[in-house]
């Protein structure tokens, strides 16, 4: 049901964990629905120097989280904001259609983390 790439990211997820002094944190989903993910970002000179995640959810939820951290790492804030859900799914060689809506939340979590970072920056100005 899942592509080899999904299984690879599920079995060997990249960038699992938290960033204790994160510049931005974004959480989306709900354990009631079966998926909850948190993305942590560390920003240096407008670039995502580090991206980490923690996810509760199905295989697709874990694989998309892992993939989005790979896609975002090293990108500028503007570039990272352009990463879409379909970019994540395409990079994983596709997701079963039933999983596209419920488990493909990783891009949203990334964007939420960036917005959190920008809000904090605004406040600190």
């Amino acid at each position, binding site marked *: 049901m899942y592509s080899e790439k999904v*299984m690879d990211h599920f*079995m060997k997820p990249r960038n699992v964990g938290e960033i204790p002094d994160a510049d931005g944190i974004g959480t989306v989903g709900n354990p*009631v629905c079966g998926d909850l993910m948190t993305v942590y970002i560390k920003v240096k000179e407008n670039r995502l120097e580090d991206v980490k995640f923690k996810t*509760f959810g199905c295989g697709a939820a874990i694989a998309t989280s892992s993939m989005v951290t790979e896609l975002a790492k090293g990108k500028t804030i503007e570039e990272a904001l352009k990463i879409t859900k379909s970019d994540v799914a395409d990079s994983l060689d596709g997701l079963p259609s039933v999983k596209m809506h419920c488990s493909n939340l990783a891009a949203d979590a990334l964007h939420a983390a960036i917005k959190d970072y920008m809000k904090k920056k605004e406040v600190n100005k």
Partner: protein
Amino acid sequence: MGYELRKVYMDNAAGMPVDPRVFEAMKTCFIENYGNPSSSHSFGASARNALMESREKVARLIGTEKPEEVIFTSGGTESNNLAIKGVAYRNKNRGNHIITTTIEHISVINICKHLQKQGFEITYLPVDEQGMVDPEKLRDEITDKTILTSVMYANGEIGTIQPIRDIGKIARDNQIYFHVDAVAATGKVHINVEEENIDLLSISSNDMYGPKGVGALYIKKGTRIQPVTQGGGQERGLRSGSENIPGIVGMGKAAEIAQERISVEGKRLQWLRDKLIKGVLDTIERSYLNGHPTKRLPSNANLRFSYIEGESLILGLDMLGIQVSSGSACTSKTLEPSHVLLEIGLAHEEAHGSLVFTLGNQNSEEDVDYVLEVLPGVVKRLRTMSPLTPKEMLR
């Protein structure tokens, strides 16, 4: 090393292998004994014989001496349809009320919903935290309009075995028909329709190492029931359509084998089940058993793990050669968690983290040991990734 090679199939409630003796018995029906039981010639007689023998074997397994009380169908779902709709339609002049439970198989639930639209009134009796029906509460729901009660023998997901004998007595005392969906229990526990006051009993072949696509409905003599499909009048007019002789012969053989080994195999499975449950609860923090601790199918262990989700558990175990099921929404077509887990009072997030192990005769003690060896690692890996896991648990 070697983990990849191991195969531990513990999803027998979803699909079972066919016993080689069953397969052997079926083979002749495809290439030699392929007649139609309705034919007057010798091929017809031979098919009729095969049909009769299978009926006798199934009758014996469920404790009736009258083989004519057994009707062959295409499986559990059809048996449930014939039993519930057939009795409801035939007896609607007596009343329109049916009592069932909230944890029935989806086929029974949907049949009842269908009847509701046609003017029948359905009471869905709640169960306790272990999935048990309280017979006294069932008695309280009976009115002068009640014609039928339908309660499953055992729940295929959480394993809980219902107090069928007590419910049967209440039904008999109140002169209402008693239907039992025994699909999950078939061949695993001793069933006796006479002693347990059962009027209708649904069973399925694949749940006892028989072929898929065949089942049976026991209908006690004298039960007022009408067919729900029309046709050539086979199976006493209650289930028209040319008989699936290979399937029926397979089911007969499966019933015969099940009856021979039910006591010994039941004890063996129960021992393995208890070893599995105890091993998991002892070694994995925040793991829990769903369903009743003792009144449960010998083959069923439904376990729940906090902070993680069932589908990822299934995938993680599958990579290590272990096949199981989950009640998680993420594994269902509807994206809703199992209604059974919600009805026993679990929150959605708890239901998501459940795994169902259903043991079969292909499983050994080594299989259970292997599961106990690798499962803690799979759980730990997922918990390390989960934002819900308390930090102190990961230290």
